[in-house]
């Protein structure tokens, strides 16, 4: 699903080396946690995978598509094949739960019929049935993240990338969101979870890739939080 070959990326024209010679292969259906301290390059890796940044050297292959030198006009095609969620949810405050999810489909040219069919499906998948008409200020942090997850799933992506999705949540909400991600993974979607929550990683009992100063220092099946 994701193949990273000798990937390097630096910011400010070479002064800050964010990633150095990353090699990894994430297979379809996996649930992979990427851990590391703040500043270790986790978000940079996410930005490279969703083509928000271009690598300095190396190769990124997503679902068999080499996106290393992806053209601007091809980026939408890539983004429609993956879902992304973030720590800060990125919801539109003036839209309801339903509208937030529908907005993603509207801007991607789905028909009204498809929108009417898919949005409720996604909302009930993330467990927000009955809260379609709420605005984000009427939702808890966990519920907001569920809306973001519902939105990221409208393309029925094969790959879901979550960059510290529980960073703003208490432990109960964190648990629920992780359970939801596991459920989505069980439905067949590859999940890449970026986190530095030790309890989460240890309870997952799945593959853990640990980054330190832009390098992979460990990559273990059924790994534990090392740092």
């Amino acid at each position, binding site marked *: 699903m994701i193949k990273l070959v000798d990937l390097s990326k630096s910011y400010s024209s070479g002064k800050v080396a964010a990633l150095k010679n990353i090699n990894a292969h994430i297979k379809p259906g996996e649930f992979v946690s990427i851990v590391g301290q703040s500043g270790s390059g986790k978000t940079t890796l996410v930005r490279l995978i*969703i083509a928000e940044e271009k690598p300095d050297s190396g190769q990124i292959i997503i679902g068999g598509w080499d996106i290393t030198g992806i053209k*601007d*006009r091809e*980026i*939408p*095609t*890539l*983004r*429609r094949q993956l879902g*992304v969620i973030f720590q800060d949810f*990125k919801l*539109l405050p003036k839209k309801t739960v339903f509208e937030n999810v529908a*907005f*993603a489909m*509207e*801007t*991607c*040219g789905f*028909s*009204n019929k498809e929108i009417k069919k898919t949005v409720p499906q996604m909302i009930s998948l993330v467990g927000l049935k009955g809260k379609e008409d709420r605005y984000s200020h009427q939702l808890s942090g966990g519920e907001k993240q569920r809306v973001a997850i519902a*939105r*990221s799933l*409208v*393309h029925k992506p094969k790959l879901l990338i979550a960059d510290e999705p529980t960073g703003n949540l208490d432990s109960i909400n964190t648990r629920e969101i992780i359970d939801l991600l596991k459920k989505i993974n069980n439905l067949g979607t590859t999940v890449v979870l970026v986190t530095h929550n030790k309890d989460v990683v240890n309870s997952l009992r799945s593959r853990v890739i640990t980054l330190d100063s832009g390098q992979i220092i460990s990559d273990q099946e059924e790994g534990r939080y090392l740092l």
Partner: protein
Amino acid sequence: MISFFRIIKFALQGVFRNFWLSVVTITMMIMAVLSVTILVAMDYVKEATIASVKNKVDILVELRFNAGSDEVEGLVIELERLTEVKSVRVITPQENLEIFRQRNQDSQISRALDIYDEEENPFSYSLAIGAYDLSQYPQILEFLNQEKYSGLVQVSEFDSHEEFIERINSIAEFVNRYSLYLALIFIAISVIVIFNTIRISIYTRRDEIMIMKLVGAGNSFVRLPFVLESVFYALAAVLLVAAAVYPLVSLLQPVLNNYFQDYSAIDLRNYFIGNLLEIFFYQFIALALINTLSTSVAIRRYLRI
């Protein structure tokens, strides 16, 4: 198709979300359209006036009373030889008398004739000279004012027309110059204002844009609403001016009629009604193009895709 409607929806949202900014934007464009429209109108007034004057006016030369038909014919031949002269028409004393009678049928002035006998005619020969071009009248006058014709030519009338045309030209020139400056200034202001409006519109929607890109909206779907928004501003401005032009011109027409008196060939109202579509369609196209260009620059600068 569905995307097309959504792009329109997004563009309209952009217009109404920053409502007062949109009002200012449209106002600036109205000023630009208005000044260009004044330019167009003034050009019409000028052309129409000069055309009507050209058709009507000859140099009217009143010959001396003692001028006989031979001398008159001699002068006609010499005049016709001039390259500037298009036509010379001889008006006999009899014709002049009739014209005078007709013109003053009902007024006291016709009484002036009462002091003459029936057979007596106080009028002399006169000549109506047409030139190819208005500007040639002075040369023809100069020719007539030569010493050798002083015994023949009494009065040559021309000044009033020359004055009139000069008046039209200077008014037209004055209005044209200032409305051209105004148009240029307002167009420049419009370009800056539209740029800024779109910049703010992009800023207002930055969260939406970020999400659109994140979920894979096409680049044109992200950009086009802004271009369309700027075209809407152009359309609104042109439509508003087009709607206001009839009442405005109706107000102006009596003033024109009053000012130009005999030259009622100037019918601004009809001109605008007849050319409404053309005048404003081209202005819309031009303004839409300008806005699109300005918006493209704003998009390139502020909308990172």
